Structures are given as C-alpha cells and as structure tokens.
C-alpha cells in the first residue's frame, strides 16, 4: 500500500480517441493518498471516459498515466485489471448491484477478484468486515445482510455499493455520479457517510459529478468544463 500522501495517480497530456471521432483531452492532474478530489463537468464533457482512463479500463491514445507506481502504458490489459481490482473501489451512477444476489454477496464482490484486498481484511472474517461497513453506511447489517439486492431502495443500494467499494481498504475509491438518482436530502446524507467511511479507511476519493453543490467538502477540484470531450 502506498505511503500516506504519496501520489496514487498522475496524468499528463492524456488524450483518448475513439473510432468515429470522439476525442477527450484531460488536464494534468494527480490524486494523492487520502485526498478527496472532485471531478466536475457538464454532461458530455468526458467525465466517464476520464474515470475509465484512471481505472485502467481504457488506454490513453497518448500522454502518460502513472497509477500506484506503474506506468500504465507498460502494463498489459490483465495487469491493469489486476491493479484495478487491488487498488480501486468503484461506485457507479446506478445499477450498482447484482439484482439476483444478496447484499452480502454484492459487497463480497469487492474482494472477489483481488487477493491483495482479501489479505487486507482487518478482522480476517469477511462477514464481520461487511457487517462493519454496512453499519458505517448506516444500514442495519443484521437484517440487511441476506436481503436480495433487488428489494432495496435506490438510496440503500448506493450505500451498499459504497460499502463494497471500501471493502478490503483500496487506496482509491472512484465514484461516478452516485448521487444523481437520489433526492437532495439523501444526496447529502450519502456524501456525509461516504466521506466519513473513506476517511476512516484512509482511502482517497475521486468523485465525478456535474452538480457544483456537492464539491464543497473536497480537497481539490478537477474541472473538465473547459477541456472536455468533443466530437470532431
């Protein structure tokens, strides 16, 4: 695990081109350990593409991206997947959970593909760890644990997704507009719980949103409004 305040992710001159003319250019940026960074930009500005680049799902067409001490251009696809599984927790905008699986199974997925994250489980017991994270996200672990995911409310689903992203203490959590389907009251509650839980675990947060009201509690802001993606 990287030392505190060490740089987890650093990007310079990043550009991504899709066949068909879609081009995205990112400003130079970095995310340090334990830091909360908001990525702000309107729809179509390339926020999701930016997250895919950071997570190593997409390879930049040009530029440099260093992640957790590795030059991602030199890593194979498999190694990038491994790096993502080991070091990054992900919260989606919506459809975060497998509807046919239980809450426990959904959260446990967080360490399913990473030995490193499994090894970082504090108590050594998956069930105890999941229960603690659900409680941290203000969910009743005892009654919630074995409920099928499709029976949860949207707010509950997002909190379960946050618990999954934090399981196994990944150094970085990335969130792609996870509050967009929540009402105002629930948005703030979710943000408070997420900040508290990630501070407790020491994880950095890279949070994408188009809503300027949500960025006040972050250490830094990456604004994609001017750089943006565009169709050429």
């Amino acid at each position, binding site marked *: 695990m990287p030392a505190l305040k060490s740089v987890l992710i650093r990007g310079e001159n990043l550009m991504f081109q899709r066949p068909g003319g879609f081009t995205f250019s990112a400003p130079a940026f970095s995310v340090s350990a334990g830091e909360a960074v908001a990525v702000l930009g309107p729809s179509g500005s390339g926020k999701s593409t930016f997250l895919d680049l950071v997570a190593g799902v997409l390879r930049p067409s040009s530029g440099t991206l260093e992640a957790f001490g590795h030059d991602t251009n030199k890593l194979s*696809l498999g190694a990038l997947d491994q790096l993502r599984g080991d070091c990054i927790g992900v919260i989606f905008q919506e459809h975060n959970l497998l509807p046919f699986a239980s809450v426990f*199974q959904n959260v446990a997925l967080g360490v399913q593909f990473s030995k490193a994250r499994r090894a970082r489980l504090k108590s050594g017991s998956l069930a105890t760890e999941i229960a603690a994270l659900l409680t941290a996200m203000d969910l009743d672990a005892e009654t919630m644990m074995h409920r099928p995911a499709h029976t949860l409310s949207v707010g509950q689903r997002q909190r379960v997704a946050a618990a999954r992203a934090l399981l196994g203490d990944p150094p970085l959590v990335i969130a792609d507009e996870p509050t967009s389907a929540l009402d105002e009251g629930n948005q703030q509650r979710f943000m408070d719980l997420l900040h508290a839980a990630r501070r407790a675990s020491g994880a950095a947060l890279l949070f994408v949103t188009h809503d300027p009201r949500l960025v006040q509690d972050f250490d830094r802001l990456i604004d994609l409004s001017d750089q943006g993606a565009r169709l050429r």
Partner: protein
Amino acid sequence: MMVGLALRSMLARKLSLILTVVTLALSVALFLTIERLRVATRDSFDGTISGVDVLVGARGSDLGLLLYTAFQIGDAAPSMRWSSFLDVQADARTQWAVPISLGDSHRGYRVIATTSDYFDFVRTGRDRPLAFKAKAPSLLSGFGVVLGSDVARALDYELGDAIAIQHGLASAGDRSHETQPFIVTGILAATGTPIDYSLLLHIRAFEAIHEGWNGSVPGRAITRHDGATDRTVIDLSGDEFEPSRLTAVYVGLKSKRRIFQFVETIEDRRRTEPLTAVLPGITLSQLWLLLGSAERALLTFSVLIVLAALAGQMTLLVATLDLRRREIAIYRAMGAQPLAIAGLLVVEAVLISLAAALSGLVLTLLGTWVAGQVLGGTLKLDLNAVMVTIRQGQALLAFIGVSAVTGLVPAFLAYRSSLQDGMRARY
C-alpha cells in the same frame, strides 16, 4: 462464490434457461434412445443363440433361415426332412443337435417345438444357460409347455395352467388345437431375447396335435388323449409321433476347428436333401453390415438434432448478453479480467449442457422403461439391459465438450463488449 453467483444469475433467467435445457434434454434423449435401441437390437440378436455353432435348415437364404428360426422374423423357412436331422445328429463331429419346428402360436406368441435338449444346450447373452423362474419336475414330457418370461407375465400364466395353441399365427379365431391343451410346466427367467416371447413344447407333442393333418389343413380330430387327467405324463414315444419334417436344427460341435469342414459336408448333401448350414455369428455380421448405413443415417440425424439444439443454446446465450451487460460491467469494475468473464459464459454453457445431459439420460431411462413395460412384447427387445454404455457415456461427454465450444461464441462477444463497455454498460 463465483459459481454461486453464476447459478443465481442463471436462476434469474430461469424461464429461458429451462426452455433451453428442455430442448437440449429432448435432443439428448432422442440420441440416447436411438443408440439404446441399436445396442438392445444387437445384444438381442447376438445373444439369442450364443451357444449354437451351426444352424442347419432346408436349402435357402442363410439370413432368412437365421432370422426366421432364431428371431421369428420374416417369412417361414421351408422345412427339412426328419431323416436329415438324424443324419446331422449322427455325424461324428456333432456334440449335440436340437430340432426346431415352428409354425404355431398362442395368442400372438410363437411356439417353438423342440426337445428337452434345448434347455441344456442353447445359451443366451454371453454363454448364459437358460434359467427357470418356476418349473415342474418334468418339463417337456407329454403335453407340457414352457413359457418365456414375458409370455407368462403378459398373459398371467402360472404352472399348471392349461393353454391351447393356435395353428399358424392366427391369434384368436382358430380353434383347431383347442381340444388338445398344453399344461404349463415351466416359466423361464428373462433372457432379453426373443425366447422371452416364445412358448416351448416337445416336438413330438407338436407332431401329435397335427396328426392326421394334410399340410396345413386339419384332418380327423385326435381325441385319444382328450380324457387324460394329467396331460404331462402322456406317452408320446411311439413311432407315430416321430415328426416327418422340421424347420431347422441347432448344432453344437465337439471341436470348433471343424466348423467349416462340417458346413461344407452339410452343403454337399445334394444326393439326399440339399441343406443350408449357417454360422450365426458370421451371418449376423452380414446383417449388421447391411443395416450399418441405415444405423449411421439414423445416428447422423440424431446428432444433427443435438447440434441444432446446441445452436439454440448459443443463440440464447448471445441474446441474453445484452441483458447481462450491467452484470458484466460490475465484474469488470471489481477487477475481473475479460477472460474471466468469458470463462463465466463457458461455465454457464457447460452447466446448461450438464443439466440437459442428465435430464436427457433420465428421460431416456424413464422412456425406455415405460416402452419396455408397454411395448415389450411388440419390440421383442430388452431396452433396459444396460443403464449406460461406454459409447453413450462418451457421447454425453462429447456433448458437454461441444457445448463448451459453442459457449465460446457468446464468451468472445462478452469479452469484446466488456472491453468496449468498460465499467458501465453502454446502450
């Protein structure tokens, strides 16, 4: 946990999956049933007269004589003289000779007129002697009759029951032998051969009930034994009951090395009566050669049905991929490599085919058991002799293997879409 999740994911799509499994299971069952029928037919034919070295009959077709005499199939073979039987019996190379006379029946089941030697020398299956479920002290003495297992079961006969045989294959109306009933003196254990559907009686009793007949035309009524209290002790050793003709002779030789020499001698009997000597094993091989292309065509047809069903399975998996893009995106976000996701699809295809193979096997066993109960007498085959043959087991493994290969197509598409979609499903 991934297997558990894969199963839950499949359960969430259970209706389409059940329909796919049913389609595949039916095609597997069809394939297995055809193979089972093939094996049962071969076993039944090969095992019917396994202890017989040579079959001798009147000059004619080898295959026709064998099929009619041993398997009761096809047109009646011409008869041979009794004196020729005595010649065969007296040959120095002959260890035993059992006369066979066919032609009459009882309620649709064939009657085999023979001697008690039949039970001592005729073998079934892999050299298995005939066994009895029940028998009286004397089997074929007088007007005693021994029943094949299925005859006794289907007609609910027991030892001591009196039955009348009919002339030819007339099943009901014929009453020409009604005044001369036979008494059940034995019931054979099941053999899985046409013997199960036969009645065996002494060739002299067979002669006695035809006494006075002119060919197939009934003659004067024979009434001298009508009042006998125990028909199984009637003495039929008199010369008047010696048959003049018979259908064929089962022959066992002292030395197998002399089979071809013996056959040559039989076929050279032009001066007395021209005869045919058949080697059952060789003639059956000729039969399988003749039927081989039909067997292969049937098998190819059933394999094509299985392949069509597998194509259906592939279509289903491809069609559901769009619905599963979110699921796949979640796995990717958690660090799953595209190859792991492709593997998941292959595992799913294998699980489906495994379920289909097992269901198909159960369907086949159940279906052939029911067919055996309902159509046993008609098919004259033991469909349930073997649970699963090696060839069937290999076919099932091949089916699962091919299914895994067809799973590669949706797996490849999932791999490609997961690379394109990244951590979220794009529509």
